[in-house]
């Protein structure tokens, strides 16, 4: 009986390794600096994770379908530049389009449309022309960056686009306080996105088809799954999320330039994989993606907080990511 319960604990530990890992990480940080343990910290981490979660939700679907997307960052950048250029305060010294006074949603929707279109084209290449996702997204990211640079140069004169409208930045930077915890509007939006994507993944045919395509594309085809149609929709969904997150990522920084978003794809995909989404396709959960994003953000925040120097931060971040995934790998090898 004794032995059995020890085993149970071990099994429990292995099965929830990623949560335990997060917990241990927090414990270590708190030991190093007890002031970490505060509502402020929680609020900040929630605020910082919001846009990253939105990107990760987008790319997770593509990974589950067996792909990758190296264009996340550049699409985010384009969305940020676009929406920022259309949402400047009229009294800013360097307004790009003076006299413009669009409702907040119009530029955001525009940015989302553009990224959805970009992702759609990528989807066409992957699903119809059978270009490997690695290349289609790499090529796309180059093109998107080029376009972004031209726009940035032509309209913004290659100067960072600042002076964003209050109502725009407020979404990312402001929020409300519940029991002392500051929750930003963007966090609410991110949570809403997570819920929506959860519904899509688990409660719609589209989601089932996504898993089917990632699980075995040939079986999916035979089973009457319209592979390219479903892929396209998932790509569009990803694009919409990049656009949404991108627009508000600009708002969060209060400005946008053509570097914004650079290599975000790595962080987004790393979060997914840390959260148990398999790069081989067919496997992943929303809870996993969320926990992955949080772990990465706790690393980023925590390492600065406990005053690790910049170069050691790289090492620590790398090591922590590896440890997290090793724990997860242990679980997988135990289950089957």
């Amino acid at each position: 009986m004794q032995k059995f319960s020890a085993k149970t604990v071990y099994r429990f530990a292995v099965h929830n390794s990623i949560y335990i890992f997060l917990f241990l990480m927090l414990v270590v940080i708190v030991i190093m600096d007890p002031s970490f343990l505060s509502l402020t910290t929680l609020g900040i981490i929630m605020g910082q994770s919001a846009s990253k979660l939105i990107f990760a939700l987008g790319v997770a679907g593509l990974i589950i379908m067996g792909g990758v997307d190296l264009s996340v960052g550049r699409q985010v950048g384009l969305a940020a530049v676009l929406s920022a250029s259309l949402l400047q305060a009229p009294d800013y010294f360097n307004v790009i389009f003076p006299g413009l006074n669009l409702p907040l949603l119009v530029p955001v929707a525009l940015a989302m449309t553009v990224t959805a279109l970009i992702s759609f084209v990528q989807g066409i290449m992957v699903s119809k022309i059978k270009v490997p996702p690695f290349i289609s997204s790499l090529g796309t990211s180059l093109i998107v960056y080029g376009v972004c640079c031209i726009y940035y140069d032509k309209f913004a004169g290659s100067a960072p686009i600042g002076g964003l409208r209050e109502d725009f930045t407020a979404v990312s930077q402001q929020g409300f306080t519940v029991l002392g915890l500051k929750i930003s509007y963007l966090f609410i939006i991110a949570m809403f996105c997570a819920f929506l994507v959860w519904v899509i993944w688990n409660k719609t045919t589209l989601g089932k088809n996504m898993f089917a395509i990632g699980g075995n594309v040939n079986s999916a085809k035979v089973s009457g799954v319209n592979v390219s149609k479903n892929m396209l929709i998932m790509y569009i969904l990803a694009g919409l999320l990049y656009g949404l997150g991108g627009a508000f990522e600009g708002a969060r920084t209060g400005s946008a330039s053509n570097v914004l978003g650079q290599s975000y794809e790595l962080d987004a995909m790393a979060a997914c994989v840390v959260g148990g989404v398999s790069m081989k396709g067919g496997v992943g959960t929303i809870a996993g993606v969320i926990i992955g994003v949080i772990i990465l953000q706790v690393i980023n925040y925590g390492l600065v907080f406990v005053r690790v120097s910049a170069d050691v931060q790289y090492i620590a971040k790398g090591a922590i990511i590896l440890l997290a995934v090793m724990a997860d790998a242990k679980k997988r090898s135990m289950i089957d």
Partner: protein
Amino acid sequence: TQTAQQPSESAPPEQEQPQKSEEPAPVEEEPAELPSIGMTVYSYANTYTSYIRKGIQNYIAAGNLAEIQVADAENDAAKQIEQIDTYIAQGVDALIVMPVDTAAASTMVDKAKAAGIPIIFVNKRPSVDVLKSYDKTIFVGLPLVVSGEMQGQMVVDHWNSGKIADRNGDGVLQFCTVTGDLGHPDAEARVVGNRNVFDASGIKYEELDRQVASWDTTKAKDVSEIWLGKWPNDLDIIISNNDAMALGVLETIKQTGIDVPVVGINCLPQVHDMIRSGEYFGSVLSDPWKQAKAAVDLTLNAINGKDWFDGNEWEVEYNAEENSIRITDIMITAENLHLAEEAYKNCT
């Protein structure tokens, strides 16, 4: 290193009088805690700003002036904001920022303002109204176009004096420019600076090509290989947005034996010998040590609630209109190389 002997000129301010608080100070807690400074730099991969960073660290370490922590924003404006969030949550006494994105400075200032701590910008200047929006912010550095103008002036002067040869004898200055990151404010400004001077000087010039090498030595090498292969006899000079790239160009020149002069900006120690030997034409120095010292002194003054310029010993000017400490740029050639050597001495 050589840093140990130097900053005797400015005594650490808080050793003078612990006069900050009005309320009766608890007497026994003596070994006065050093103020903590959070610094974020836009990229560890940038050589020139690394010198400023090291200058700051060395200056602080030598005088045991503060506790400083440095984070690398990896060229990501959002990450930089996050680092500032973290610093503020952690309770630092002041922020030093080499911004990724100058337009994001307003967000940073807002955050610093809310926390009531000073924020000092170094190297890239935010817009004036941001600098004026908070009494505990200031900028140390120089207006963007100046370096480019100096570099242009150097080329014009030496073209006119014949020191830059007209290699194809057509009376036109043919040159190529290798620039930093696409859309990078410095890169843009330096090209504009060059152009302003060329136009004003009335010389005949032709830019054969301009290519982006993203501040990267290897990329600059690749690009210059193409140029020297294409115009081996026409190129009169290659203008580089900074020295790191110029190093790559020089390597191609050495390799191909085609003798084309190169000018750069920053005047990094790596090029000093080459300037002396004439292998490298010249560069523009914006003194990293002065920037570092100014940045630290200003920060400490602000922390201690003193006037910005209390105990000011730096040979720099304050531009009230822009709320900026201006570092002046200097053209460096073989003759005045010692200035550059001096400037970098304490920044390694």
